[in-house]
């Protein structure tokens, strides 16, 4: 007769699997999230009140509940208040918290073993701790620490507080640190119980260091991929804790996220047409700047006035809008929707071309435009948009750069070479709105801006759109 608690864990496991499956489909996604949350709640409540170890229920209820309350309040407030553009870094932050949680659990469990055995003479850790048990502890510690440190760096990079940092021989350096982590972990197991805590803490410190240097060289545009990878790391760390307590819910959740997270990472890489290895080696950086320098002058750009831009759009039959990060930064999605409506009133067909990695995360533009009540049906995925450009009169690019850079098709030495782009050059006219001629996240020049069909409309996206709206009224 299975205990109520094991049924709780079974229910939780099922909701995790079901919830994740439902999250992969737009119509069931929101429910899937709620279902998984419900299962998690059941597992947590069940553990608090029903968990028994050596015939004893859990104690320290005041500590447990106050910790949960603090975490819930902070978690809910930050999640609700944060700007849409800060979502990926928040996901990274929460991921880091999970990794730290897993590491802390393992550290406490190590401490129990250490305290229980440190008075023994001439005994090695390997004599008193079974290998499997130690493996679960050390893996949870190392993987949790790497994920925590890496996630903090990723969070810093995404909110602009941290620059990309790479140096010659970094890959070798990282490899050495990783090797040292493994060596220290094995050493701890085979050291004398009296002093086993020292190599253990060295292992933790090295793991944290590795986490930092793992993420440090990777470019900000690649961060969502890295966060997805760190996500699966934390899943594995959770599974290790699951092994430690033989807990079905943790095992299921951990392995599920570890596997699904890894696959999602690979899918994200495919959307950018870059291999994971390429992303992790951080090929954005010194190489890109050198290449940009070599190309030299690409020619002259043409500027277009607000009045002319408004006119050419008002008399167009079809306008395709390409949103990018600049739109998000300017928080101009509402102004954009207003422009769309104004153009449609004049009989212009307006649609949006959404590149899979436009913005700072996949789906960033969709979420931004949906917030402005732009109809779902107007958003075209890249393949569909590329079919429509040849029949488009005007393409309005709002703060997008790398996703419309022809170098991805034409220049094998470009860091973005091979990435599928939006083929805006097929349209009759291209108007590019940016704040300045500064390069985008890839740090390279964009020859699109110098082409004959292209003209530049400089300014903050929100101001420009609002001014275009005013001009349209007089056209």
């Amino acid at each position: 007769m299975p205990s109520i608690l094991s049924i709780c864990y079974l229910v939780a496991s099922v909701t995790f699997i079901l919830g994740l499956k439902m999250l992969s489909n737009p119509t069931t996604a929101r429910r899937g999230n709620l279902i998984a949350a419900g299962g998690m709640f059941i597992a947590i409540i069940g553990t608090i009140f029903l968990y028994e170890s050596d015939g004893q229920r859990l104690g320290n209820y005041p500590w447990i509940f106050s910790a949960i309350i603090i975490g819930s309040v902070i978690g809910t407030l930050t999640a609700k208040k944060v700007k849409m553009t800060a979502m990926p870094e928040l996901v990274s932050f929460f991921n880091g918290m999970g990794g730290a949680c897993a590491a802390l659990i393992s550290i406490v469990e190590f401490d129990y073993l250490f305290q229980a055995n440190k008075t023994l003479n001439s005994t090695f850790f390997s004599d008193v701790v079974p290998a499997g048990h130690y493996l679960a502890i050390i893996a949870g510690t190392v993987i949790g620490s790497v994920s925590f440190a890496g996630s903090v760096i990723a969070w810093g990079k995404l909110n602009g507080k941290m620059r990309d940092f790479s140096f010659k021989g970094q890959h070798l350096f990282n490899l050495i640190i990783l090797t040292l982590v493994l060596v220290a972990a094995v050493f701890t197991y085979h050291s004398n119980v009296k002093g086993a805590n020292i190599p253990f803490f060295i292992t933790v410190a090295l793991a944290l260091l590795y986490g930092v240097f793992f993420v440090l060289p990777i470019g900000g545009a690649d961060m969502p991929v890295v966060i997805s990878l760190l996500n699966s790391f934390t899943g594995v760390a959770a599974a290790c804790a699951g092994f430690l307590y033989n807990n079905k819910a943790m095992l299921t959740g951990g392995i599920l996220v570890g596997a699904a997270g890894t696959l999602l990472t690979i899918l994200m890489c495919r959307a950018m047409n870059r291999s994971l290895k390429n992303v992790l080696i951080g090929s954005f950086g010194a190489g890109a700047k050198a290449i940009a320098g070599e190309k030299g002058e690409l020619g002259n750009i043409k500027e277009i006035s607000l009045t002319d831009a408004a006119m050419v759009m008002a008399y167009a039959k079809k306008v395709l809008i390409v949103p990018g990060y600049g739109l998000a930064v300017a928080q101009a999605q509402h102004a954009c929707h207003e422009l769309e409506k104004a153009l449609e009133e004049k009989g212009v067909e307006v649609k949006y071309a959404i590149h899979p990695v436009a913005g700072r995360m996949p789906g960033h533009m969709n979420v931004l435009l949906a917030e402005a009540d732009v109809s779902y049906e107007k958003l075209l995925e890249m393949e569909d948009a590329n079919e429509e450009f040849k029949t488009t009169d005007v393409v309005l690019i709002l703060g997008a750069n790398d996703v419309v850079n022809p170098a991805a098709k034409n220049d094998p030495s470009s860091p973005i070479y091979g990435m599928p782009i939006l083929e805006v050059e097929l349209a009759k006219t291209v108007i590019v709105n940016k704040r300045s001629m500064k390069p985008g996240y890839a740090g390279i020049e964009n020859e699109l801006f110098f082409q004959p069909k292209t003209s530049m409309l400089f300014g903050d996206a929100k101001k420009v759109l609002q001014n275009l709206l005013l001009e349209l009224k007089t056209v």
Partner: protein
Amino acid sequence: MIFLGIEIIGRVPSVLHTPLMSGANAIHGVVIIGAIIVMGKAESGNYIALILGFLAVVLGTLNVVGGFVVTDRMLEMFKKKK
């Protein structure tokens, strides 16, 4: 379980990559159960277990609650408008 994980992610539209990542993030917050166990078993006077355990529960809760709330927020933007 690994096969299941891979099967599930098989056909995800790229627009859902981020909410899916966020949802998976919340689910691995299940590690909080381990933290609760650590906290619950800690004997008074064992400050390491009490303090680290407390911290672990706070961080685990952040992962779980923050994770599910931010995922829900990302998804409420996907309501179909007619």
